[in-house]
């Protein structure tokens, strides 16, 4: 029953109730209170809404106008008003002040009527969303031009829109302890491993944070190993990428307020794949993928190989090349490691600077920086021209990796590789590679080995790994990911 003494509950007395609401949120400048009399009668009513979050036209035409003008006779009762007067889709009753306030602050309109025990909550939320645009961070030549937006329901709609699939399931959760945010776990019911879905759900429920502004927070709070340099959760702006991951048996996490969806579990090879691989014919895709693996290797080991060849193993360079490197390094005052560090750090600074610059200045800085590094530094004899080539090649290679976050981890690891090359030569590079391999083999993302299908080796999955075989040949899903439906064509 109603507890009249409790100030958290509505009493049915209009003045007291209104004062109660006013007391709670009345100090906010964007909360509007509108008091009026219901058409023809002397019954007082008030609507409370937040400016900007609500649809003003809806409020004016379908709430105020209906209540003031179309109220023709009849008693002011809850049933009569909801059933005959309010021409609005979503109407609910609310007894408690706290929950009413929560709804008003997310865009609903509260309606208080003198004599009615409960407040009515009317769905008048106006979604603040932008146009669906092409994803900026993952542009492709061929493929859908759709990208996620900041609005969760738009994003889930994009996935539904992909095609009719009754098994596509969404599970809604809330994250953030002070600022509540909506989060959706998407998966295909009969492909995804139920244990995996349960695990994802559990990890998300365990998130203890005041606020989760971006999916990057979720990513960092649910990943397996936060000390690893490799990302264990993939982020993407592309609905098609999410959908194909779902069809692999993976789970996607969509957070309200960010266009970046997360995909788990992740394997290392996914970082070097692009959705376009499947849209183009298999032969070019096959080669482009190999090229990307090569680019990843260069971006990781390029400068360290240069250092070890130039400072340790000069006998391994072809003679003519060795002579020309020797000639160009004549007069360079630094050993190769210092030379490489200067150039690498410069190019990282340049990249970092270019990232934040306005679009109009970006290219200018690129040209100036490129000229300063490429031309002036060589002219001044600080670095050798070959070093410039190595650094430029490495930088370009790191941009050839389709996943920005994967590119970052390789760029990061380049520096320890360079140091180990400077200390032990090729031996050091090999040691570093072994160290990296042992870490990668141990790493797991939501129970799936990070380097599968190499380890554990499943040759059937190699059809879609470093190379992409013709689509007709890719028949099986990644074994460790999908529990049941291992064959793609059912």
């Amino acid at each position, binding site marked *: 029953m109603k507890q009249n003494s409790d100030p958290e509950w509505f009493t049915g007395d209009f003045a007291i109730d209104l004062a109660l609401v006013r007391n709670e949120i009345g100090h906010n400048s964007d909360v509007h209170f509108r008091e009026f009399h219901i058409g023809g009668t002397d019954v007082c009513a008030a609507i409370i809404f937040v400016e900007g979050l609500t649809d003003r036209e809806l409020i004016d035409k379908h709430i105020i106008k209906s209540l003031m003008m179309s109220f023709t006779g009849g008693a002011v009762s809850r049933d009569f008003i909801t059933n005959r007067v309010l021409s609005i889709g979503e109407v609910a009753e609310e007894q408690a002040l706290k929950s009413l306030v929560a709804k008003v602050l997310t865009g609903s309109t509260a309606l208080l009527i003198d004599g009615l025990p409960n407040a009515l909550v009317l769905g008048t939320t106006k979604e603040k969303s932008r146009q669906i645009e092409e994803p900026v961070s993952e542009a492709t030549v061929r493929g859908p031009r759709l990208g996620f937006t900041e609005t969760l329901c738009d994003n889930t709609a994009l996935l539904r829109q992909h095609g009719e699939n009754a098994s596509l399931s969404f599970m809604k959760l809330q994250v953030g302890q002070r600022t509540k945010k909506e989060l959706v776990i998407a998966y295909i019911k009969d492909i995804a491993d139920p244990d995996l879905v349960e695990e994802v759900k559990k990890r998300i429920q365990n998130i203890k944070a005041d606020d989760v502004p971006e999916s990057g927070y979720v990513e960092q709070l649910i990943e397996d190993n936060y000390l690893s340099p490799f990302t264990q959760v993939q982020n993407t702006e592309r609905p098609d990428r999410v959908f194909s991951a779902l069809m692999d048996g993976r789970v996607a996490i969509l957070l309200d307020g960010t266009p970046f969806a997360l995909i788990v579990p992740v394997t290392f090879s996914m970082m070097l794949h692009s959705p376009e691989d499947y849209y183009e014919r298999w032969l070019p895709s096959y080669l482009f993928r190999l090229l990307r693996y090569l680019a990843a290797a260069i971006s990781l080991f390029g400068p360290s190989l240069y250092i070890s060849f*130039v*400072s*340790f193993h*000069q*006998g391994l360079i072809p*003679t003519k090349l*060795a*002579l*020309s*490197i*020797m*000639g*160009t*390094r*004549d*007069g*360079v005052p630094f*050993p*190769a490691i210092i030379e490489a560090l200067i150039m690498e750090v410069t190019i990282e600074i340049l990249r970092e600077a270019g990232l934040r610059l306005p679009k109009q200045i970006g290219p200018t800085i690129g040209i100036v920086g490129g000229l300063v590094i490429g031309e002036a530094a060589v002219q001044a004899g600080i670095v050798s021209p070959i070093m410039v080539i190595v650094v430029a090649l490495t930088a370009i290679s790191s941009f050839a990796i389709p996943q920005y976050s994967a590119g970052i981890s390789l760029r990061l690891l380049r520096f320890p590789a360079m140091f180990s090359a*400077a*200390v*032990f*030569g090729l031996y*050091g590079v090999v040691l570093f590679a072994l160290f990296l391999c042992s870490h990668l083999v141990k790493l797991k993302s939501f129970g799936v080995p990070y380097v599968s299908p190499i380890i554990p080796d499943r040759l059937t999955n190699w059809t879609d790994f470093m190379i992409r075989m013709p689509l007709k040949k890719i028949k099986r899903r990644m074994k460790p990911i999908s529990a049941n439906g291992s064959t793609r064509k059912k």
Partner: protein
Amino acid sequence: MNTQQLRRLLCSLSILILLPLAGCWSSKEIENLGFIVGTALDLEKKDPDHNGHLLTVTNQFVTSETIGSGTKDGKTQQKAYKNISETGDAALPTLRNMILRIDKRAFAEHSKVLVIGEELARTLNLQQTLDFFIREQEMRPSGLILIARERASGTLESKNLVDIPAFQLIEMTQGHDRTTKILPPMTLTKIQGKLQSGSSFLLQSVSSIKGEIKFTGAAVIKGKTNKLSGFLNEEELEGITWISGKGKGGLVRSFDDEGLPIVYEILSMKSVIKSHVDGNRISFDLIIESEGRIAEHWDVSEKDFENGYLKRAEQASVKEVKRLIRNVLNKMQHTYQADVSGFGNKLRIEYPYVWEKVKKDWDQTFSEVPIRCEVKLTIKDYGTSDH
């Protein structure tokens, strides 16, 4: 800070200290090296108060200075290489003495060629001379071995400033695909087997005439002593190439009945040596087959596509090839008494028991063995002309 944290800190610190302490010791920057690209070995005569032999080692160095000055414009050009000679009684001490005279660290992993002077090859066992170079880890196993007529150091000199003679020598051996006058390259790895086997073999010989280097036939190394016993000239080397069948291209210049030249260009050649043993009599059959084309002929009245003419041209070329082979066999059997064309090896394979008996004095036996020779040339092609 508790003990565990302290321990962790000490642990990571010691790793950080250990890395530079244990590492970097073998680091040497490329511009501080002096690449030895070629080495010449000579015997020093002027040594009155020394009983043994004195070696002169000449190293051809390429350093960042010599390379750098060659590429930068506006400067007066200097030589692209630097030759340094040092004399001593063994190879390594002599080489180490060079440290006293150069600012760069000598680095032999790009060593391309080893030239041995005529005098040295005649006097000393090659196995002794080459011992260090075969043993040394820094030497490339693919390094080439040449014998110089007269002094070896002369072949590492060039009139042209930008050329590096050691590289020129290497590139000149590539020509062996297109002429029968150059031997297939003999590397440090290959020569080990030859030196151990006790059989005679050939090395490419090179001479330096007024600062220009030229390949001049082959040097005959006697298997018993591993010493140089003499040279074959270019024409004799052609005969050797025909016998071995290892030529990949080249020409046969013969004359037709009217004395006008016909040039046969070799497209392929194959040779088979067959050994025969009849009681104590050993003999060999040499069968040579070759296909080729007419590359040039001066008789304007003849038509290439007439079979009669082709037959005559083939006959003339066969005659010339036979002459070349006879010529060199004569020299091998009678002048040098050295089997450098693998006749003995064939006998070893086909009649191992006979070989066991004769192998001790094979070069002597070989000089009296009859060799029958059969040559078959086929003209497949006469180019883009019909006359």
